[in-house]
């Protein structure tokens, strides 16, 4: 099993959710996060005052899937989240040792 963690632009959330649902993946965790990568912060000038904006609002999506579906999911994510500009975000992939459904103790891929 693999876990992907994708950081995307807030306005792309709906599109990404639709695309993932379309390939039959339903479970995901979405959080509102702030951070910066290469987009870095930037300075905003507002009425003569400079504001350093160093943490930009982003959306984090976490999904755990069977390893066999990883490539398909990544392709879908990239296609739906891309605008081609700096700040589009990143996808990280992790190995998952075990998954347990709390309700009935199902294990492994059956718990996903």
């Amino acid at each position, binding site marked *: 099993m693999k876990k992907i963690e994708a950081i995307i*632009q*807030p*306005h792309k*959330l*709906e599109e990404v959710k639709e695309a993932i649902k379309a390939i039959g993946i339903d479970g995901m965790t979405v959080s*509102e*996060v*702030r951070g910066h990568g290469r987009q870095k912060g930037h300075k*905003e*000038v*507002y*009425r*003569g*005052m400079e*504001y350093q*904006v160093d*943490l*930009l*609002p982003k959306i984090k999506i976490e999904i755990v899937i069977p390893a066999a579906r990883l490539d398909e999911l990544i392709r879908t994510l990239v296609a739906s989240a891309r*605008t081609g*500009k700096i*700040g589009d975000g990143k996808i990280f992939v992790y190995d998952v040792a075990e998954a347990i459904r709390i309700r009935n103790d199902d294990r492994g891929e059956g718990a996903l």
Partner: protein
Amino acid sequence: MNSIAVPGVRETLAVRAAEVEHRVRSAYTNTRFPSGVALTATGGFGRGELFPYSDVDLLVVVESEHQIAPIKPALSEFLQTLWDGGLRPSHAIQTVNYCVTDHEDNLELTISLLDRRRIAGDPEMYRWLDQRFRAYLSKRGAAIADRLASHANARRAKFQDTVHHLEPNLKDGPGGLRDLQTIRWLAALNPRVPAPDLSAAFEFYAGLRVRMHESAGRDQNLLSFDVQESLSEHPAELMRDYLRHARAVDQAARRSMESAKPREGNLVERFHDWRSRISNTEFTVLRDRVWLRSPASLDRGLSLFEFVARHELRLAFDTIDRLSGRGPETVWEDWRALLSLPHAGMGLRAMQESGVLASAVPEWSHVDCLVVRDFYHHYTVDEHTLVAIDSLETIQDRRFADLWAEIDDPAIVRFALLMHDIGKGSGHDHVDESRRVAHRVLERLRTPENDRATVEFLVAHHLDLSTIMTSRDLSDEATAQMLAERVGTVERLKRLAIMTYADISAVNPNAMSPWRLEQLWRVYLLAHSELTKTLYTERIHDAPGERAGFLEGLPTRYLRTHLDSEIAGHVELAGQLESRAVAIEIVHERGVYRLTLLTRDHPGLFAAVAGAISSFGLSILKAEAFSNAHGIVVDTFTFSDPHRSLELNPPEVDRLRGIVRKVVEGKLDAAQLLRGRPKPLLPSRGARFEPRVQLNNFASETATLIEIVAEDRAGLLYDLTRAISSAGCNIEVVLIDTEAHRALDVFYVTVRGEKLDGELAKKLRATLLAACSAS
């Protein structure tokens, strides 16, 4: 209402209690208890109100301590019989003495005995208990009531002291069954406490609770989402009914608890007495509550609520009673006066509590207790609206707090918030419907065109910023353009941003997360920079209609910041220029003066007028300057009169007009006029800050943008504009604002129609900085 109530629910409860009583009595008789023991029903069982899965409260009463141990074997046998019969007894053994003594940690016993009833055992023992307990109450009743009120407060605090919960607890939550009982107990304990009739609420709750117990098969009291759905096909309607009852009970419970509290100690009382000095001919203030002296003050206007908001008071219960069903006749000026006050929210709360809000604005009843049923919306629509308005008083974020402070007509924003969701529950798109309702209400209040248009705009667009926040690419230029197009002016943008801030904050206590706050600010900045980039320098060409000549060449912003009536006034003033060189108009409204001046542009003009105004000791709050293609300038100065020299000496207005005219015509030198003025008082050292001057050649396509933030002082604007004129620069557009001691000045300047070059920009910046610091 009461669609859920089980018919004859009281009978159901009584029948169940009678049946249980029968079983308890026979179990008691079949067990060999020693003599001198009385079996007493207390609590719900004592009242004869037994819910299907409620505990059966029993108290075994004896005369002395040594009787307790010998009873135990019989008691266990007795209880076991009840358990085996499927009942859930909750029992205690106490001596009569214990029952009629104060116990710091056992108030529950005293309270449960208020609903005592003999079931079985020694009648003499019960009579003895009854007699002693009555005597105890007559001596200690008021003190027990006081403690009960404190307990109730602590219980309610666990539910944040509010009826607004998505999944309320029917029994212990504020406005629930326990509050209903508390109201009754307090009235029984202390004759000063009122005993209102809330039987409709009781029957509604009891009907719900019986069905909840039956379907859960246990003592279920949480009205969870699932339970709501299982109880009704229209859970939102069910919850609306629930909340209507809960609010009435909550209000009655607060009243009872307050009446049960003894008067405060000396020091506090003295403070309240001191507060009572704000009493006037219409209202009496006692213990921070407002009583009415003449009922006539209720029929017209909102002066009572203005008084409440101004002094941060609450209505006396007596006042609420007298207000019931009354709706004062109001006009826009009444609302403006109330909603301009910093604690306007308190006034609106008092209106809501007394029902006056719904009678003054009947449309308000559409959203009364209206439930938006999802996990996100914590409050009913009416409560959400009031929370939104309250949230303006406690803006934590510095940037939004500043923005709010800059808005000079807070009443407009508050009124727009009051209307923003009023169309919910109509079945139509709520934004559209809210705007329609707002239009109707504003017409009825005879609101001036200007204010009405702004409120309607804010209501119609109140979701725009939050939609853009989450669904548009903020780095896309098209987003910025679309937003600027839609909002039109910086003034509107500010109001909309503040309104969005309040709206989001009032969805639930955690809705305004740092994430959303940052997103909203980004959207604001985006629109702000787009608006300031184009609106000031983009010019009007070939406007339709007969005003075309006057409008030709004025910045687009001019159209966006002036009402039709104002433009008509300017066109009329422009007409006067055929016979004279300068047209001046001075008006006094809403506590400030506004001077409008039209004349042929010439170098140093703006500085000269600013200087002339300052020389009268007047304080310039805002200023704008626009010029059209024919070289005619429209300058507007808004200023306050801190020494009341114009207000107390009307001829001074004419003198001001004359002086401005002479300065414009070059017959008087502004510098000369200012020489005689006393030095301004500077704010304390701690409040001072470094001035900033920024020149920017990228913000506009045709002009250099100069942004200045400096400590405000008399004559500052004159010094700054003279410095710009002296450097040979032409001021294309001016936008002056002040906020507390800070002056926020924006100039678009050119030199011979071009932007400033590096060398000149550097020199001018140094000169301007020096002017900011000069005193």
